[in-house]
């Protein structure tokens, strides 16, 4: 006896709970792996998950089993050369010698335990404890668009908004209310008249009175208007504030001769993080790349990261260009504007003060957040010092110093860490 069951339509994620428990249990290790991985990522795989590796010893389940040594007797197949009593050198890389037994128990090698987490899991882990800077405060403040939404009905309005069904329903109700009493009287009078006419000798006087009464009632009923301005109903609209989901991210980078490719790669990783981070919060994030040496220019991603330029450095040129672009294309009332500037700290000495002034007076009031990262193993120069002076009065400005690749993630976390309430 047998019967078949098609289980294919059942949920396939029977192990989902167990998988989540595993990830929760090893969160610390996995997070470490995630932050290590970011430095190996490239711009092109923004949307993929990540392969995570955890040292196998951290997750092994301890058990008693037989150790190495002692006297073991094993039987093997395929004898092709041995005779009884032969002595053979001990193979070097012999394992525990356990051919049988549960693979799951003996399967703890020294290799790392490698597995893939999905994009969402990856990003959640990466951005856990991070929050968009000051978002709440600003949302209430101004970053609001209004959207018309339906909100019931009202008795006044423009003809274009008349709701016909509602209006006719009102009309019907009014007509019923205004004529039902008269209709009842009419039926009564008609019945009396009919009864009167049944009699052999009808009372002519009464008959006339009734007929007149009936005629009057009919006129009154007919006089109830089919539709009245009282019946009209108009669709009502309200303006509802909606936080905008648009964001633009400005990437500013110094491409003068002093910025080598390695420095640019580091800056790139920082931008990747920022982009990932913003795209978690906003539905569409636009990116504007501005590169500068002595002059600033808006470019595409490829050119931004990979084309080589030489020359001096005037940072304010980039800031000016950014301000222009904001004014032309990104109305600060509608757009959440973020900017990240990467530089090796070089600037034409006389330019640093105007930079700080431009930033403080014109740009910062328009921006959600401005992050300046200085990628250099050397001491800070004038630009850093100028920016530093602005920090006190501008909570949406942050500056950080990156020395090597592994600094990027901690610095990023530092910049965007959840602000204590």
């Amino acid at each position, binding site marked *: *006896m*047998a*019967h*078949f*069951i*098609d*289980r*294919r339509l059942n949920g*396939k*994620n*029977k*192990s989902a*709970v*167990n*998988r*989540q*428990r*595993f*990830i*929760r*249990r090893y969160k610390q290790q996995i997070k470490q792996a995630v932050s290590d991985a970011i430095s190996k990522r490239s711009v092109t795989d923004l949307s993929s998950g990540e392969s995570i590796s955890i040292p196998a010893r951290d997750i*092994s*389940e*301890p*058990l*008693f*089993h*037989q*150790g*190495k*040594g*002692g*006297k*073991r*007797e*094993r*039987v*093997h*197949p*395929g*004898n*092709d050369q*041995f*005779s*009884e009593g*032969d*002595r*053979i*050198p*001990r193979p070097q890389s012999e394992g*525990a010698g*356990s*051919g*049988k*037994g*549960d693979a*799951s128990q003996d399967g703890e090698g020294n290799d790392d*335990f490698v*597995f*893939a987490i999905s994009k969402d899991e990856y990003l959640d882990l990466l951005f856990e404890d991070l929050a968009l800077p000051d978002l709440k405060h600003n949302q209430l403040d101004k970053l609001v668009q209004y959207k018309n939404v339906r909100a019931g009905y009202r008795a006044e309005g423009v003809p274009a908004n008349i709701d016909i069904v509602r209006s006719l329903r009102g009309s019907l109700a009014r007509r019923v209310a205004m004529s039902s009493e008269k209709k009842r009287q009419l039926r009564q009078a008609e019945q009396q008249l009919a009864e009167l006419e049944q009699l052999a000798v009808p009372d002519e006087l009464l008959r006339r009175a009734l007929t007149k009464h009936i005629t009057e009632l009919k006129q009154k009923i007919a006089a109830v208007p089919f539709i009245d301005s009282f019946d009209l109903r108009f669709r009502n609209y309200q303006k509802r504030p909606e936080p905008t989901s648009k964001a633009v991210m400005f990437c500013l980078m110094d491409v003068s001769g002093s910025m080598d490719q390695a420095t640019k790669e580091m800056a790139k990783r920082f931008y990747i993080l920022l982009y990932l981070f913003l795209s978690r919060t906003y539905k569409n994030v636009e990116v504007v790349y501005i590169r500068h040496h002595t002059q600033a220019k808006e470019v595409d991603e490829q050119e931004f990261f990979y084309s080589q330029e030489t020359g001096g450095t005037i940072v304010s040129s980039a800031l000016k260009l950014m301000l222009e672009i904001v004014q032309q294309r990104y109305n600060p009332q509608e757009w959440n504007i973020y900017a990240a500037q990467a530089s090796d700290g070089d600037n034409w000495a006389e330019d640093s003060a105007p930079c700080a002034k431009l930033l403080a007076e014109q740009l910062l009031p328009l921006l959600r957040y401005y992050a300046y990262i200085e990628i250099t193993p050397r001491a800070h120069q004038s630009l850093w010092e100028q920016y530093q002076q602005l920090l006190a009065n501008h909570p949406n400005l942050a500056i950080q110093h990156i020395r090597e690749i592994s600094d990027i993630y901690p610095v990023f976390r530092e910049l965007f860490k959840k602000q204590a309430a």
Partner: protein
Amino acid sequence: MSSIAFNMGSCLSDSPDWSFDLLHDYQQQIARVAALYKLDTYPNQIEVITAEQMMDAYSSIGMPLGYHHWSYGKKFIQTEQHYKRGYMGLAYEIVINANPCIAYLMEENTLPMQALVIAHACYGHNSFFKNNYLFRTWTDASSIIDYLVFAKNYVSRCEEKYGVATVEDFLDSCHALMNYGVDRYKRPQKISMEEEQKRQEEREAFLQSQVNELWRTVPGKAQVATTSNIFPAEPQENILYFIEKHAPLLQPWQRELVRIVRKIAQYFYPQKQTQVMNEGWATFWHYTLLHHLYTEGRLSDRFMLEILHSHTNVVLQPEYNSKFYSGINPYALGFAMFSDLRRICEQPTAEDKVWFPDLVGSNWLDTLHFAMQNFKDESFISQYLSPKVIRDFRLFAITDDSKEASLEVAAIHNAEGYQQIRQRLSAQYNLSQLEPNIQVQQVNINTDRALTLRYIPHNGIPLGGNIKEVMRHLHRLWGFEVRLEQQSSEGNISILASCSELS
């Protein structure tokens, strides 16, 4: 030839794609033939599942439903990873020792594979589960699903009450000692779901009172320091059972969790002891049943070729120096031994008459059924491994003594070596020699309540694994100091590890 009749018939469809109608046809034919060979089975419940679902089934170690635990998640991730990278194919089937017997067929299999799997799992393994003495004694196929449901619900109730982390940590500790949660000699009791639930409540109350009795701090008047000071009176091999009954500090729910882990370990214990026989038996029958159908003209040539192709892969035994070698393939050895048993009955040689005088000329079917019913791997090999199989596998025995610089070939497939090889191969499947022998030795009930386990090495093999970690888990269960001592072959006792506080 025996009395098996061939009932010639028309060829069944041999399209590569399966459908439920076709599966049904094949199932009926296989069932008909299986009855001819007296295969006695539980009713079959055949479930078609996807590859993902197969991975789920894998990671829950073949249990159709299990309580939640991170280690199953780990297994799932491992399986998924290996499968995705092509390191391993998934098994074609998983079969569960339950009544009705649940077999999973994978959607991706071709029709010939499905037929093979039905013969292998639903008639081979199934009849083994129903008739082998170990399974009959140790497991109760009709209640296992109910028990697993009970266990799952109980664990999740505990999680609600005491927190997921608490329960998980506790289960970790139980899992670390799972191999020592098995009764090797005592006969387990069979009870149904309702009884289990009813008893569980009584047990909670009763157990606690027993424990309180044992750990009473005020000594009774008549307590003289004689035999009563040695507790337990005899060493206990079932460590989890001992903890469930006697650990001083456990809450009733914790005792129940220990019991659940121990019960599940017990359920799987026979499977560990009968790998070669179980797989050999199932392989022998898919081979025999499908050949029977082929002889009757019901399977087409191309259908049979695909089946034989898979069959050959399954029974492949790589040689010791092959890079694919990972010990003896239980499918290959088991299949060879059952096939050889049949040969001995039907076409005995002069050698067989010396080695198996009782078998020569007996009814092969009865002999095979008898062998399947009354043995486990260890005894099966020591009873039935024939010189021919030893020669076919070219088996040789190696002695690896860590005191010697080199290995010694102790025996090869020649007249002088057959007995030796048979004996050593049998020992190789003796679980009590494979798992370290660790037993509860003593509890200081009147002093510091310390629990002492004793490891008795076999052949001087030291204890391996993460001993310290396991001891910490044991400490969590016991609640007081735990010690592990080792008894050397000369009888000297030395302390291997101890754990007195959770750090």
